[in-house]
């Protein structure tokens, strides 16, 4: 345990754990700039509804969200009872494998889950206390691209191929400001493009997406997302489809965009490097459920769920010796997920109780949550990963 945490403190070139100082200043700055009305979060509780003395609701809270998808083979419980909260100005990373329900959770916020096949069965999605599931179509469209903006994974397909990039960004502006004239919209788009680092913005305005490189397209997507100064940015795998060399630039841009707008950010990713780079807080999802939640340093230093521990040990790290350890087994069948704890077939510490008894995320103090029955025993259990790998 001590060895691990020391290693993390040293910072790795591959996955760089966030340093303490930078993180704190960044967070408080962002909050002050963006939303002076909102009481800055006290150090203790991460979930605002749990923290005492704060009457302000969180910017966004999701309560017991259940999303099902009808497929030919049966119903997939893509999201199965997810609750989380995002406060103004903070960056929350949602981490998990493909199919863990992280993207669907994000899509649900803006009501962008395609129905059919998807359907939101249960739960509330509250934006400053306003229930978005009950919101009118008109109100929802006001929020989309206004108060909440999204950045999508693949900028190759997320932009309309037959409309110029400039007009697509201008559309985002004009949908939320009906009095905005074409010329004003154009000059604001050009400013936005410059801001996100698109060179020759004037000329680029009239170009089509296929004339942009992948990185430039994602910059344009970010420009579109921050066009209306949103309070919440949802970035769904914003760097996954990009070249490694471009990823760092886009991450840097996301960071500055977030700082400038002061927007809270939900960062959906499976890349722990991205998490370490940007996030304040991390939510780990597995099989449609939250298995762990912690601030980013604590999570990297001392995971409290065996799945998180497995994820961390399967990432190449320059600061740690030894082979990469993969999580044994494969992701669960979401039509018929394992009973009890969905992770138990792959868990090196699984016991009888894990097979029958489904753990709910519970409070570990310091704003941490874990959905492992044996979160307290995890430090010893971690050794089992390495042992299991050698035996196998």
């Amino acid at each position, binding site marked *: 345990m001590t060895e691990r945490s020391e290693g993390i403190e040293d910072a790795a070139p591959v996955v760089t754990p966030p340093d303490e100082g930078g993180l704190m200043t960044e967070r408080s700055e962002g909050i002050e700039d963006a939303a002076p009305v909102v009481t800055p979060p006290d150090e203790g509780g991460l979930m605002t509804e749990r923290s005492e003395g704060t009457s302000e609701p969180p910017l966004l809270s999701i309560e017991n969200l259940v999303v099902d998808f009808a497929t030919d083979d049966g119903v997939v419980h893509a999201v199965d009872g997810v609750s989380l909260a995002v406060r103004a100005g903070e960056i929350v990373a949602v981490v998990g494998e493909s199919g863990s329900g992280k993207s669907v959770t994000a899509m649900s916020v*803006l009501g962008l889950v395609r129905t059919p096949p998807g359907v939101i069965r249960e739960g509330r999605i509250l934006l400053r206390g306003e229930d978005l599931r009950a919101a009118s179509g008109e109100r929802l469209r*006001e929020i*989309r*691209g206004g108060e909440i*903006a999204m950045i*999508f994974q693949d900028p190759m*397909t997320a932009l*309309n191929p*037959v409309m110029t990039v400039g007009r697509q960004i201008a559309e985002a502006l004009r949908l939320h400001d009906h009095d905005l004239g074409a010329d004003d919209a154009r000059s604001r788009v050009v400013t936005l493009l410059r801001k996100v680092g698109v060179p020759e913005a004037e000329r680029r305005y009239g170009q089509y997406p296929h004339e942009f490189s992948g990185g430039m397209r994602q910059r344009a997507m970010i420009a579109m997302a921050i066009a209306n100064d949103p309070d919440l940015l949802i970035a769904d795998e914003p760097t996954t489809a990009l070249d490694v060399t471009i990823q760092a630039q886009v991450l840097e841009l996301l960071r500055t965009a977030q700082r400038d707008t002061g927007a809270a950010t939900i960062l959906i990713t499976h890349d722990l490097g991205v998490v370490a780079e940007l996030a304040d807080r991390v939510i780990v999802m597995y099989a449609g459920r939250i298995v762990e939640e912690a601030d980013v340093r604590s999570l990297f230093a001392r995971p409290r769920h065996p799945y998180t521990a497995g994820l961390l040990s399967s990432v190449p790290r320059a600061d740690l010796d030894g082979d990469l350890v993969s999580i044994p087994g494969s992701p669960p069948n979401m039509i018929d997920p394992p009973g009890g704890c969905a992770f138990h077939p792959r868990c090196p510490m699984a016991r009888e109780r894990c097979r029958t008894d489904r753990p709910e995320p519970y409070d570990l103090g310091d704003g941490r949550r874990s959905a492992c029955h044996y979160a307290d025993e995890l430090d010893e259990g971690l050794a089992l990963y390495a042992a299991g790998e050698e035996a196998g």
Partner: protein
Amino acid sequence: MGAYIIRRLLINVLVFFLITVVIFWLVHKAPGDPIAMMVPPDQLNAGSAAFIAAKRHELGLDQPLVVQYWHWLTGALHGDFGYSLVNGRSVTSLLGERFGPTIELMGTGLLLSLVIAFPLGIVAALRRNTRVDYAATVVSLGSVSIPAFFIALIAIYVFTVKFPILPSSGISDPSAPSLVDSLQHLILPAVILGFANSGPYMRYVRSSMITELGADYVRTAEAKGATRRRVVVRHTLRNSLIPVLTYIAANLPQQLAGAVVIEQVFAWPGMGQLAVSSVGRHDYSVIIGFALIIAVLVLISSLLADVLYTLVDPRVRLN
């Protein structure tokens, strides 16, 4: 693009030349003789045989095919496509006066088929797997599977016989020509032609629209706060046009073929009617003239399809 079009046109000229060779050969080698057709079969005797031979010699039909082709080609290059063996009129003037009515019928038919196909296809895609979609499917199936002439006969029965509100034949009433009268004559054949061609178009629009509605950029537009209507009108429509326009342009010759049948039923004085009667009489020059017009139409359609492609899809560049 200009250079591309010029190159394509030059290639088309070569193709067109080869087509004239094939058509000329086929038409002349087909069984039957235009002159013999002029003599009633029961009057065939030595005298009529001499008459036929003399007539064939007079028209140059007894010369080798290569020589005949050479005469035809040198004439054609000067704009002389020969004369009808039946009434002696020039092919250019015969087809020329029939070209207008056919284009009028075909154009209106095409327009109507698009007017039927686009709204139906879009609505069917938006209301996929609902009653609206199924109803649209039935309509398009009907359009594909019920022969146009059959629908035409029913329409004539209903609108001319039962309720005499529309004329059943001709392009206008010579005794009282007017715009209203022309439109009345146009309605039945054009609507039926339009309906007959709308089925495949509607299916194309529907499937293309469904593909586009599932595209990522649609979600982006929705995430910006666009309404459904805006998503369809501003985003998916133009994208779904890409395959549809190509199909429509490439399908123009089919439209002409459909018009030929409708012209027969409604006694529409178009090229189709002339072509059918010329084939029956082995009127070589007229048949060749008609075949060449179709050939040109096919060549232009495919060129048009390519050019349209570049207009709706900025990713496509011709070179």
